[in-house]
């Protein structure tokens, strides 16, 4: 393997890792954009989505052999899981976050931590602590492109992440609902005065964010397996990605995700930093970015009012 193709291999690895972060960061950034608080439970909703998807998929495919039906089942399972998580997300919002909207900024953060505890431990209690395999619904044999090895799964993640981003962007920028979302995000009270049902909009945003988490959860579960704490670390990383990209900004979340993935890969692969320091390097660079551009890469500078 030549050094050029090695570089491309690392690039590919970094991009797909980044794709995973980006996919989850999308949901994060949506929720944050409108509610302005870190939804710590996002990673756990992702985990619930993966479990729902796994059970639905296994039930649908039954004992049939690998074939087109598996792919169909996978997408049906994904729809079920996304719907399930959307409902879950809305319920969580209604119960645990809505009553706190007027209070301090810390209250919803702590409430979210509480929800995260409940979800992850509830799942461990109900489903056990072992990892479960999520079978690939397609043949995942690697494809060789020159010296670079890529799996169909990696491509799928990249494609889904980009499609999701574009769809979200269009939804937020072009539709009436999206406009209402932006208005609520900018100023909830004024939006209310303008006749926007901001409670409904917030609830909807939460639903969409959670559905995105479920989709991401199922896709990463193919590679990472399904277990109760699967969302914690990846959720945290995705949040970091969202912040770096400029939280509340959909393109920024994408950019932040890819940047984080590439940083983690190249810091180790090219700069020769010991792997153990991978997270340290990623975080150090992120802190640096925040110092140079405190509002994140694509974030808008918010004028402070006195």
């Amino acid at each position, binding site marked *: 393997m030549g050094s050029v193709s090695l570089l491309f291999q690392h690039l590919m690895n970094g991009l797909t890792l980044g794709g995973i972060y980006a996919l989850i960061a999308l949901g994060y950034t949506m929720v944050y954009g409108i509610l302005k608080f*870190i939804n710590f439970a996002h990673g756990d909703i992702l985990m619930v989505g993966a479990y729902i998807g796994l059970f639905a998929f296994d039930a649908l495919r039954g004992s049939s052999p690998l074939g087109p039906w598996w792919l169909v089942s996978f997408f049906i399972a994904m729809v079920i899981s996304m719907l399930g998580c959307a409902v879950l997300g809305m319920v969580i919002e209604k119960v645990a976050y809505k009553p706190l909207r007027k209070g301090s900024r810390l209250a*919803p953060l*702590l*409430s979210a*931590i509480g929800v995260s505890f409940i979800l992850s431990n509830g799942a461990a209690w109900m489903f056990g602590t072992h990892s479960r395999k999520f079978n690939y619904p397609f043949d995942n044999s690697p494809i060789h492109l020159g010296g670079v090895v890529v799996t169909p799964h990696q491509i799928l993640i990249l494609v889904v992440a980009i499609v999701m981003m574009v769809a979200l962007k269009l939804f937020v920028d072009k539709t009436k609902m999206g406009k209402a979302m932006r208005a609520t995000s900018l100023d909830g009270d004024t939006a209310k005065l303008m006749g926007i049902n901001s409670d409904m909009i917030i609830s909807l945003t939460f639903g969409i964010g959670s559905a995105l988490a479920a989709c991401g959860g199922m896709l990463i579960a193919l590679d990472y397996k399904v277990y109760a704490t699967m969302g914690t670390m990846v959720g*945290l990383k995705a949040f970091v990605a969202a912040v770096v990209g400029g939280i509340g900004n959909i393109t920024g979340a994408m950019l932040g995700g890819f940047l984080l993935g590439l940083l983690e890969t190249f810091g180790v692969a090219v700069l020769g930093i010991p792997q153990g320091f991978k*997270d340290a390097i990623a975080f150090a660079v992120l802190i640096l970015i*925040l110092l140079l551009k405190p509002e*994140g890469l694509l974030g808008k500078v918010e004028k402070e009012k*006195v």
Partner: protein
Amino acid sequence: MLNFFILILIYTCIYAFMSLGQNLITGYSGMLSLCAAGFFAIGSYTTAILTTSFGWSFWATLPIAALLSALMGVLIGLPTLRLKGDYLAIATLGFAEIVRNIINNWDALTNGPMGIQRIPMITIFGIKISPYQKYGFLLMEIIMLLICWFLFERLASSRMGRALEAIREDEIAANSMGINVTKYKVVSFALGAAVTGIAGCLQAEFTLSVSPGSYVFMVSIMVLCTVVLGGMGNFVAVILGAFIIQFISYLPQLIGLSNIIPAQAKQIIFGLILVIMMIYRPQGILGRKERNNKKAEKNWLLNKKEAINEHA
């Protein structure tokens, strides 16, 4: 049973130190910091390394640990102070992760994932304060905690405390009133870090061993919960918060339920408590301590009256 209760109190004290620091940073200055685990680790490892590799006494390591933590506090505080709210949270969280990375990977210094064992016990005037004889250890902790608490309480009622509160309420206004925002923020970060470092020293001396598994992200979260649950901006409240958090997390063991209920139940109940608490009592159990302004107001009025009289 009583024995176990004392143990809870010992852990409470260790957490109380951390929550004093977090309270100064978050409760008073309004900065959302998530790096208690990082300072905690620095304190623990300073004591562990200096006592085992260099044969220092615990008391000599204590100021070094506090100083090192404070230095780290300044190091992270200075550049990140421009960041607001959640951006600061991420930067500080990143810092704590970097510390954990370093202690887990710098094998030559920290012995990596194996941790450091056989930390010598604390001695005071030749008397060993064994963690196994819990009362002595607890007494020492309480004395140290009282000293710290007293100092922090004094600090809070001083000019600096008022400045910090002003910054929390409205940074721009505080700045235009001539308060040196950066200075006060950095100092509060450093002091908060130092006292968290001290908690780390005590932790190392209690279990007589350190390993990276004790300094995870969850510690920072728990300390934040302690402060919010107790009542932000109120030192007595956060110490009470530390007790309540420790009490809750060891309650099943204390009352002999831990073997009966599933292991996850405790965590789930803790999650529920957090949610319910935030809905019904977001200001914490005791709430913020309101400054007694009556006296100040009176003085102000008196002064004004005198001034008017003089003019007349």
